[in-house]
């Protein structure tokens, strides 16, 4: 079947509405490439492509179940693992940063007084938003390089906060209704200054701050 503008637009419209597109055999490579390009563009829309709270919760449970089943099966030729997991490499992908932030929890160490910025060196300044686009006092989510964060404007100043939960590394959302930062996974909540509003037995660390500057009306974040 030959591709045509109507058929491709139907596919695009499905992506824009976050619907599963109809699956039709495609005539050639070009038709598939056009659809893969459409997917990539769709994902680049600000705020697109983040998993829903429900999906994350479901996956948390599924993963626990699958790991449990896997571990219950004996591994032929393998001795029981006593090896600690090593966290290393790949300087600062988002998950890596999340993992590192989570380490304190697993180590049961006292929460650090983490007022340091998350990225300290080897980073670069990347523009993420125009200052004029930021509302006063309401956190705006952004993603740049390895960093998932919030920008919070206060007059002519902007503060940056990590958007990775210090509990288990999920990506946080801001609730305009409750005026707080919320974790979709296990319900941790934070004030817009990064302080946890804790219902956990041991208090969570605060959200690390990010280095932010304003250059010619653009808000830039120091990121890896």
């Amino acid at each position, binding site marked *: 079947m030959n591709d045509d503008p109507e058929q491709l*637009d139907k596919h695009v419209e499905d992506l*824009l509405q*976050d619907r599963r597109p109809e699956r039709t055999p495609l005539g050639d490579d070009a038709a598939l490439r056009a659809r893969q*390009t459409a997917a990539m563009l769709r994902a680049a829309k600000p705020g697109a492509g983040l998993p829903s709270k429900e999906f994350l919760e479901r996956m948390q449970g599924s993963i626990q179940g699958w790991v449990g*089943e896997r571990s219950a099966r004996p591994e032929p030729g393998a001795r029981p693992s006593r090896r600690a997991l090593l966290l290393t490499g790949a*300087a600062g*992908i988002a998950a890596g940063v999340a993992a590192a932030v989570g380490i304190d929890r697993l180590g049961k160490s006292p929460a650090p007084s983490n007022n340091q910025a998350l990225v300290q060196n080897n980073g670069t300044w990347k523009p993420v938003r125009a200052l004029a686009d930021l509302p006063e006092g309401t956190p705006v989510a952004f993603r740049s390089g390895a960093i998932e964060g919030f920008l919070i404007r206060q007059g002519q100043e902007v503060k940056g906060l990590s958007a990775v939960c210090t509990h288990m590394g999920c990506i946080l959302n801001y609730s305009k209704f409750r005026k707080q930062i919320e974790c979709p996974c296990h319900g941790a909540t934070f004030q817009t200054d990064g302080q946890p509003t804790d219902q956990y037995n041991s208090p969570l660390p605060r959200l690390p701050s990010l280095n932010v500057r304003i250059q010619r009306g653009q808000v830039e974040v120091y990121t890896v």
Partner: protein
Amino acid sequence: MSEDHKTGAAAFASSGKVVALPQADATQDQDHLTWAYQTHVTAIYQYIYSRVGNRPDAEDLSAQVFMKAITGMRSDVSVPELRSWLYRVAQTTLADHWREYYAEDAGELEDDVTRPPAPRENPEAVLRVDSLLATLPESYRRVLELRFLRGYSVRETAQELNLSETNVKVLQFRALNRAGRERGRTT
């Protein structure tokens, strides 16, 4: 804990420093493994989303990736191994997806699946899109920006560009095909 732990996040993010967790018994190993997988859900979901562009497919395929990855892997893995394993499973799962639903032989269509895992890729999807758009003629770039990045309907795009709706669809068709060829050249 030590000074290392206080600055752990920063040191890790900037230098790839190795941080060992305390030695664990079998139950703790299992917890660590569960946790290590869980911290990758968002990244894998985003990686897949940027390739399929819609939530239902991204959710189904992500769940498949984790199920296949966990049931097929040793339990004594390090996180870097686990991460590249997850991306490798994600790539083959995507290749199967294209093959099954859109084309008879997607193996040679999608260059992405033969590339080494690129864990940092998704957060940079926006940058990749910017550089892709920069290769296109102005009218192509405009139509893609309005439709995808600003979410304009065909009608709104037509008004903005002073074209008919049919012309917008034709322009979008040419722009996506041209951009698809450009991607094929650079990947």
